């Protein structure tokens, strides 16, 4: 395949991935790596490098829209970013040392878990128990806008949430994904932060987390310009279009379809990793 054929094909594939990622809220990054590895026979390390950079683009690009809604909590984001960026460094360190097959197997497992998490019903996380003293000391408790004025919420289980964020950051640095599903899980299920605050704050954190491992990827030669270029532009364009039509579209069936695609890709990655295909 010549460059002139390869680049448009990858661009188109990334655009669809970015579009679906935005429509389903799963993010495009999660399918870029399997797409490149399975369909385009790209080495998993190049795929991870290109995907990670596209994650920064979508996270930063969406931030302005999220900020306007007034849900994200900059203090929660900044405090937890200590954990996610440290985890991302550890992940990037591992990515350079683990065998490609092992990375593929971990990737497959993460894909399947992510899609399961996306199908989960979301009960309104109720604040429970006594106030967390860390949350008070770190001034994490805040309010978010609702139809009947600002509503107060309290943050719980700070150490557990912080620990999980380290793990989410590590997965991001190891696999080149935003690991938004895990960040949201830590925030709304463990720390009992309202779902809408969790998702927007998670989006804010994804870019910073990815930037922490991107520098290492770049210096280690994981970032191939001829590959990263169509991936970044495609995902970015796709997610912009996706956010525009999100307001009108009913996404339930799309979410289910996308989740099934992700599971299939996950199985493919695990199988490929075990049989030494990568």
């Amino acid at each position: 395949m010549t460059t002139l054929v390869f680049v448009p094909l990858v661009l188109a594939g990334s655009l669809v991935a970015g579009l679906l990622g935005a429509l389903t809220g799963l993010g495009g990054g999660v399918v870029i790596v399997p797409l490149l590895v399975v369909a385009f026979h790209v080495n998993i390390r190049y795929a991870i490098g290109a995907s990670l950079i596209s994650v920064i683009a979508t996270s930063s690009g969406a931030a302005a829209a999220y900020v306007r809604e007034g849900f994200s909590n900059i203090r929660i984001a900044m405090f937890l970013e200590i954990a996610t960026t440290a985890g991302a460094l550890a992940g990037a360190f591992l990515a350079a040392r683990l065998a490609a097959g092992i990375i593929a197997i971990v990737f497959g497992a993460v894909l399947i878990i992510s899609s399961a998490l996306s199908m989960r019903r979301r009960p309104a996380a109720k604040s429970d128990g006594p106030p967390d003293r860390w949350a008070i000391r770190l001034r994490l408790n805040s309010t978010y806008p609702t139809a009947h004025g600002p509503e107060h919420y309290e943050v719980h289980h700070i150490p557990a949430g912080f620990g999980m964020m380290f793990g989410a950051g590590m997965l991001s640095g190891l696999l080149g994904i935003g690991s938004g599903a895990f960040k949201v899980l830590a925030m709304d299920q463990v720390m009992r932060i309202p779902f809408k605050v969790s998702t927007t704050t998670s989006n804010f954190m994804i870019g910073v987390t990815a930037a922490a491992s991107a520098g290492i990827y770049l210096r280690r030669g994981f970032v191939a310009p001829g590959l990263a270029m169509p991936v970044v532009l495609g995902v970015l364009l796709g997610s912009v279009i996706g956010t525009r039509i999100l307001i009108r579209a009913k996404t339930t069936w799309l979410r289910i379809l996308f989740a099934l695609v992700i599971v299939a890709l996950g199985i493919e990655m695990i199988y490929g990793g075990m049989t030494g295909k990568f």
Partner: protein
Amino acid sequence: MAQSNAPRSRWNDERVERIMGTLLQTGVIISGLVVLAGGVLYLVRYGPVPVNYENFVPERATVRSIRAIVNNALHGDGRAIIQCGLLLLIATPVARVFFSIIAFALEGDRLYVVLTLIVFTILLFSLLGGAG
């Protein structure tokens, strides 16, 4: 929190976040344009060349270190210009963290100046060549 009574141009979280959002979006647009420009040059030059990403051979040194990337980009190398755009993209969230330090300082929030400095240090450590 302080959205009801903020008559003077006081620094508060909401205003800071608004500025950050604009900063991030601008960074993405600029870097996207640089990547696009580099991409066109790259396609013109390498269009007919077959691609092979099947085996991992770390990218050439010319597109790995910040200094080499900027140097080669200034000489009109499409690949280096793409990397330049990607560097700008990576720098965008780093810039957000940097401005958060200033914003927290203006708010007089010492605790968060320190917490944000920790994040900023980790990011610089990664970008400028700590752990490899």
